[in-house]
């Protein structure tokens, strides 16, 4: 017996369809729901036990008893009770972009309606999200008279943009002059005996004025660091590492980029040195330091 497909000439495409569509009668209950839907109203039907079925059925699924003649308007908003996110919509689907299928309990209903929700991303549609229908302009009495649902408005985005002009303080100016010249200028508090960098005019610990400048080397030790996965205009690439670097001779660390080493190899205690841009390119700015790069010395115990 042959077990492999026969030649391509003996393979044919075959379509099963009802040209023009298949006509179905709706009966009084489903017909009423679809008629109201055409008018832009969402209606549920009451069971003898007082539950409201949406979409309506002719019989109570719990008991098999016929439903009552009592109709109630529900929705149009509802609460999402479960979702599935479609990454690649199919031709038969209601939307041509990624969307969610959802079970939606319309306000006033005791059962959930299945429909599509245009939410942008799965995160925008947690369980319990509130949604509202988007109606088709031309309605015919069909479940697709609701094109789809969309999340209720729960937030707005307000653009904020205000301009300022900043001038460097005398102590920052002094520090940046040092950076321009390839030196880290710090200061020593006469009372606390602590060395701070950048240079400042008063001690953050005791509040006393500081006047003693200290020139610090451009070598130091990484005390802690973070691997950043979001792009930053000041960073060369993603991921990049920002670190606290304790310059040799300083008592508090300075925050700076670490480069020239794969992000996952950066560690606490790593010895680093500032990589300076060429002197002719320097300005009164921290960009004079491209980043700190490992010196290759053994790690330091912190």
């Amino acid at each position, binding site marked *: 017996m042959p077990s492999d497909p026969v030649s391509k000439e003996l393979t044919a495409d075959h379509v099963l369809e009802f040209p023009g569509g298949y006509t179905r009668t709706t009966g009084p209950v489903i017909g009423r729901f679809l008629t109201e839907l055409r008018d832009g109203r969402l209606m549920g039907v009451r069971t003898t036990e007082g539950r409201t079925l949406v979409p309506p059925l002719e019989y109570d699924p719990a008991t098999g008893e016929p439903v009552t003649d009592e109709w109630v308007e529900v929705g149009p908003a509802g609460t999402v009770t*479960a979702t*599935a996110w*479609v990454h690649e919509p199919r031709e*038969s689907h209601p939307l041509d972009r990624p969307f969610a299928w959802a*079970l939606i309990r319309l306000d006033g209903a005791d059962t959930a309606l299945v429909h599509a929700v245009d939410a942008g991303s799965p995160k925008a549609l947690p369980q319990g999200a509130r949604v509202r229908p988007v109606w088709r302009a031309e309605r015919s009495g069909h479940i697709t008279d609701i094109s789809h649902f969309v999340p209720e408005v729960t937030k707005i985005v307000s653009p904020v943009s205000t301009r300022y002009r900043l001038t460097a303080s005398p102590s920052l100016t002094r520090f940046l002059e040092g950076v321009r010249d390839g030196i880290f200028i710090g200061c020593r508090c006469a009372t606390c005996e602590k060395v701070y960098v950048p240079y400042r005019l008063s001690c953050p610990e005791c509040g006393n004025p500081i006047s003693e400048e200290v020139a610090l080397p451009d070598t130091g030790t990484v005390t802690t660091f973070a691997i950043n996965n979001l792009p930053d205009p000041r960073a060369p690439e993603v991921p990049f590492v920002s670190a606290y670097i304790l310059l040799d001779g300083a008592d508090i660390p300075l925050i700076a980029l670490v480069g020239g080493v794969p992000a996952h190899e950066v560690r606490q205690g790593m010895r680093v040195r500032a990589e300076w841009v060429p002197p002719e390119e320097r300005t009164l700015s921290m960009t004079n330091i491209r980043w700190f790069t490992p010196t290759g010395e053994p790690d330091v115990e912190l």
Partner: protein
Amino acid sequence: MREVAVVAFAQTEHTAHDTGLSEPELIAPVIRAVKEKSGLSTFGFTCSGSCDYLAGAPFSFVSALDALGAWPPISESHVEMDGAWALYEAWVRLQHGDVDTALVYGFGKSSLGDLRTIMTLQLDPYYLEPLGLDQLSFAALQAGALGAPRAALDAVARRSREDGRANPYAFDLPLEGGRSVVEPLKEWDIAPITDGAAAVVLAAGDLAREITANPAYIRGIAHRIEPHYLGMRDLTRSASAADAARAAGVGKAPVDLAELHACFSHEELILREALELPEDTVINPSGGALAANPVMATGLIRIGEAAQRILDGAARRTVGHAASGPCLQHNLVTVLEA
């Protein structure tokens, strides 16, 4: 209640594509196999399960009868469902007492069309089918409602594929999750497209033991169904599977192994809870539907696999389960004992 046992089981080496076999050609080898295993050449009753929508041809089960030898005329029936329900009908027929043997088979080629579209056609035609709600989407809605941790789904999928690789009839599928198709379902959470068939012979009374040393006696069999519309049910549990399991007596004694008809990873979690299976029950040692899913035969294969362990003398008490309809709407549970 008349004693009825599974005395023979056979299945095809399932394929992921159409090999060009006509349906009688697909079925004939498994029919031959169970005739040889049982030593029977004719049967008191014959019942099959299939779905014409898979082939896109009406009454395809009628031409499939050519594989049986239906002359002189035979007593025959068909369900437009998985072969597991054909087995149920055959079991009921044997309870009448006037015939002692039954041949049951199920078959389907899901590679011929687009199964996601075809399964949309089984949905309610007023509220669900017009939306184009496809099979993966409604299954993913249930998985979303259940909210099972990814690790739990992955464990089911990985174990099913590993077991499937050891099963000569199932597929060698990669041991990785694949992409997310309809979230939260990934590729390995979804039963593969499969063509195949399976057959079972039932025998009643003393005849069962004359045919085989270890008949797998059906000690309980029941099926229950729930409302069709997804929004009218609690999709996080399967009340119908639980009711069927209680009616079939699953919990009356320890269960060595259970073959559960879970076409999606999350369904196994729901079924395991519904059937109240203890921790030490082995689930789907065949790999289950996640390792091979010949639609309309998969449920019958679950019963066959569960019976085969008893026929082989490897197990004393097993459970075979079959499901039908969207999101485990309809469940059939069979308890088999040595």
